[in-house]
C-alpha cells in the first residue's frame, strides 16, 4: 500500500564529499531514499554515519556532491538557492534537539513569526499560532517566553511552530534527545498526529524506542543505506488489519 503513496522526498544516487585533496572526506556514498506521504520515517544510525548530512540534503539546506533530490515533486538539483528556499518555506517544517526558539519572543510570537514569513497577516498568524499551541497543549502558555517553559514545553512550542504552517513534510533531528521518556512520548504523539494522506514526517534519531511511532525505519551506516524495514507502528497496524 505504501508504494502508491505520494513521494515527498526522492533522493537518487546522492553522494556528499567534504573538503578536497588530502582533506577529502566522503560522507555519503550513492544513497537513494524515498520518503512518502502518510508515513513517519525514522532515519537511524550511529554517530558519524551521515544521517544528518542526508536530511540536510533532502531538505535543501545543502547541495549533494552528486545525485538528484526531489522535494515535493520539485527537482532541487536544478534550482537556485532562492528557489530552494521558496520550496522550503512552502513545504517544510523543522524540529530540532535544541528547540531553536527566540528567547525574547513569547511562545505565540515564536510560532506566529514563521507564519508571517509565509505570508499570513498578523491577525491570521496570531490566530493560527494560538490554535497550533492549543493543539500541542500549550494554549495557556502562549504568553510565556521560552525561559519560562520546561524542556518538553519548549519542544512542543517548536513542534507547534513546525506544524502551524501545515507543511507537507516535517523534518526533525533528535527531537526527543533532551527530553525524559514520558515527555518524549508526548512529543512523538504530536508528530505522529501530523501524518496524513498528503503529509509525512522524517526524523533522525538514535533512540530505538521511537520505532513504536514509525511506519518505516531506514538504517544508515558509513554513508550507505544498510536497511529499510517497516516500523512497529505500521507492523502493529498491519497486524490489526490482518486480524
Amino acid at each position: 500500500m505504501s508504494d502508491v503513496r505520494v513521494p515527498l522526498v526522492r533522493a537518487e544516487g546522492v553522494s556528499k564529499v567534504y573538503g578536497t585533496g588530502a582533506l577529502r572526506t566522503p560522507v555519503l556514498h550513492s544513497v537513494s531514499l524515498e520518503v512518502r506521504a502518510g508515513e513517519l520515517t525514522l532515519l537511524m544510525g550511529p554517530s558519524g554515519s551521515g544521517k544528518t548530512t542526508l536530511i540536510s540534503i533532502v531538505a535543501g539546506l545543502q547541495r549533494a556532491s552528486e545525485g538528484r533530490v526531489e522535494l515535493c515533486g520539485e527537482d532541487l538539483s536544478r534550482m537556485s538557492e532562492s528557489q530552494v528556499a521558496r520550496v522550503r518555506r512552502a513545504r517544510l517544517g523543522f524540529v530540532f534537539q535544541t528547540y531553536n526558539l527566540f528567547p525574547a519572543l513569547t511562545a505565540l510570537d515564536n510560532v506566529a513569526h514563521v507564519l508571517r514569513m509565509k505570508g499570513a497577516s498578523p491577525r491570521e498568524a496570531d490566530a493560527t499560532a494560538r490554535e497550533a499551541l492549543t493543539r500541542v497543549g500549550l494554549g495557556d502558555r502562549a504568553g510565556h517566553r521560552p525561559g519560562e517553559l520546561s524542556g518538553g514545553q519548549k519542544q512542543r512550542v517548536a513542534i507547534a511552530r513546525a506544524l502551524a504552517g501545515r507543511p507537507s513534510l516535517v523534518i526533525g533531528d533528535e527531537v526527543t534527545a533532551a527530553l525524559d521518556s514520558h515527555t518524549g512520548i508526548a512529543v512523538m504523539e504530536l508528530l505522529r498526529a501530523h501524518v496524513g494522506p498528503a503529509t509525512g514526517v522524517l526524523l533522525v534519531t538514535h533512540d530505538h524506542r521511537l520505532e513504536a511511532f514509525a511506519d518505516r525505519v531506514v538504517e544508515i551506516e558509513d554513508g550507505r543505506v544498510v536497511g529499510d524495514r517497516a516500523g512497529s507502528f505500521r507492523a502493529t497496524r498491519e497486524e490489526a488489519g490482518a486480524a
Partner: protein
Amino acid sequence: MRHPFPDDGRVRGARPMRHIALQSLLFDRGKLLGALAGVAFATVLLLLQLGIYQGFLSTASALLDHVGGDLWVMAKGTEVIDNGEPLSAGARSIVTSPACVARARGVVLSFGAVRKPGNALDGVQIVGFDPVTDGAALPAPTVPWELARGLPSDLHAPLRVTVDTTDIAKLHLPADPVGSSLQVNGRAVYVAAVTRGIRSFALTPFLFMELPTARRLIDLAPGEVHYWVLDLRARGCAAEVAREIGARAPDLEVRTAADFRARTQDFWVKGSGAGTALGFSALLGLVVGTVIVAQTLYALTREHEKELATLKAVGASASELASFVGWQALFLAVVGGLAGGAIAFAAQRSLLDAGLTVVLDAEVVVVAVLSVAMMCTVASLASIRRVLRLEAVEVFK
C-alpha cells in the same frame, strides 16, 4: 491538501523581522542600555563639537554679520576684520562717489587696554559704529544688536559705552554696571547700556560706542575709520563700484561682505586650529559610538545564530535576515540619537552661561543625524555580513 499560506513567490521583506529584531534587542537590557549610551554619547559629542564649531564661526564673524552692508572698504592687505588699519578722512568722499552707493557707514574696530580696579590691565575691543543719519530710505542695522539694558540712543552722549553681561565680572564691574566708569586707553568712559551674549572669538570684551567716542579712545582724527561699509542701490553693481574705488584709491581694498566674512572665519577658526581640534573630538565620538554599537549588534547576532539559521531553514530570504540587524541598528540610531540630542540641547544653555557659544541650528542637526545614521550603518556591517554568511545547515550542528 490546500496550503493555508500558499507561497506566491513574493519575498516578504523586512517587516516580519521588525518585531523579532526589536524584541530581541529589548530583551537584553544590559546590552541595550550599553548600546544606547554609546549612540547617545556619540550624538552629544558630535552635536556639541559641531555646535561649538558653528558657534566659533558665528562669533568670529558676528560683527560683520550684524553690521551687514554689501561692500566693505579697507586698507589694502587687510585679511581679517580684527586687524584693520585706519583710513584717512578723505576716503569717505572716494567710497561714496560711485552712483550706485546708497549709503556709507563708518566702523572703527581696535584693541584697547582697560585698567581694572587694583591697577590690572586687560584687553578690550573697541567697536565704534555709525548711528546712521543719511540714506534714510534704507533700514538702519541695529548695532549693538542684543541689548539687555538700555537703548542704542543711550550711547549718543560722549564717552558712553556698552559692556556685555558675560564680561561684567571680568571687568570687575557691579552687577548692574550702568553708570559705572572704566579706564580705557587712559580715558574714563561710562557704561550706558548692557549687551547680552555678544562676545569676540578671542573672548576679549567688546565695548560698543559711537564713532566720535571710539576715535577719542584710539586717537583717530575726525573722519577717520577702519572700514567703510557700503550699502548699494543694486547688488549687481558691486564689481563696478569696487573697480571705480580701486581706480581712484589704489591703497584701498574693496571686498564683498560675504568674502570678508569667509576670510575672517577662516583666519580665526581654521587658522587657529580650533576647527581641527573640534573635528577630531567629533570623529573620536563617532569612532567610540561605532565600536560600542558594532559590538552590541555583533554579540546579539552571534547569540541568535541558531534561531536565525532556523529562519533561513524555513525559507527566510537574505534581506529578511539582514533586516534583523538593520532594525536593531535603526532603533539604536533613533532612540540613542534622540536621547543624545536631548542632552546636547539641555547642555547648550549651560554652556552659553559658561561663556561658550553652541549653535545647534538646522545645519548642525542635519549633519549630526546623517553622521549618527552613518555610524549605525557602519556598525551593523560586520553583523550583516555574518548573518548573510550563515548557513541554514548550521541548525543541525
